[in-house]
């Protein structure tokens, strides 16, 4: 299938629009419910990260499904400050409740549930891509 693209304002409430865009694109391919939920969570994590930390005004998302392998890829492109969330150290998920902090947990979750994640800075833009086999 051809790649599809959407551009939204960098505002938290636009996350729903991205989720709806991706779900309607994947639906004809009958993705597993588990993969769909994991992709939805990843969209929430990556998009909210960009909105809160990049300073970008808009975010463009390019979605592609490689039909032979069922690998779905989603690239988030923004013109904000250089920001590689993958450089952040993984949180210590074994700490007791009083010592737990929430920072970094979202990207950690994305790294653990997606098959691959990739960051690149090119032409003054951030490119963050997630890959997930949808069935």
């Amino acid at each position, binding site marked *: 299938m051809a790649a599809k693209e959407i551009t939204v304002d960098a505002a938290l409430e636009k*996350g729903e629009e991205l989720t709806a865009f991706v779900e309607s694109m994947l639906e004809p391919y009958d993705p597993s*419910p*588990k993969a769909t*939920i994991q992709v939805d969570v990843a969209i*929430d994590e990556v998009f909210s990260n960009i909105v809160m930390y990049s300073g970008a005004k808009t975010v463009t998302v390019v979605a592609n499904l490689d039909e032979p392998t069922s690998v779905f890829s989603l690239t988030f492109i923004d013109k904000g400050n250089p920001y590689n969330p993958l450089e952040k150290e993984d949180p210590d998920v074994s700490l007791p*409740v*009083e010592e737990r902090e*929430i920072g970094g947990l979202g990207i950690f*979750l994305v790294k653990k549930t997606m098959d691959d994640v990739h960051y690149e800075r090119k032409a003054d833009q951030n490119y963050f891509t997630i890959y997930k086999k949808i069935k």
Partner: protein
Amino acid sequence: MKIEQTRDNSTLTLALEGRLDTITAPELEQVVNANLEGLTALIFDFAKLEYVSSAGLRVLLSAQKKMNKQGKMEVKNVCAEIMEVLDITGFSDILTIV
């Protein structure tokens, strides 16, 4: 997300329906904070919850810390997909899942 509140004396049950994410987590935080006074048991019912992202985990962590000081907190009816998120993030050790 829908939040159904049932208060029985000092026990509050919050049944969540839909998605607990960046957009909806602040609503849940407000409901929890507005009801904390005199509460000794806070029960989350996840039977109709589709997923939880880290914004939702942040609210659960904060609620757990508060309830540790004044009573108990439990999470029930956790589906496999949400359980995986709780396992990956170590939240299955922090929360009391029944």
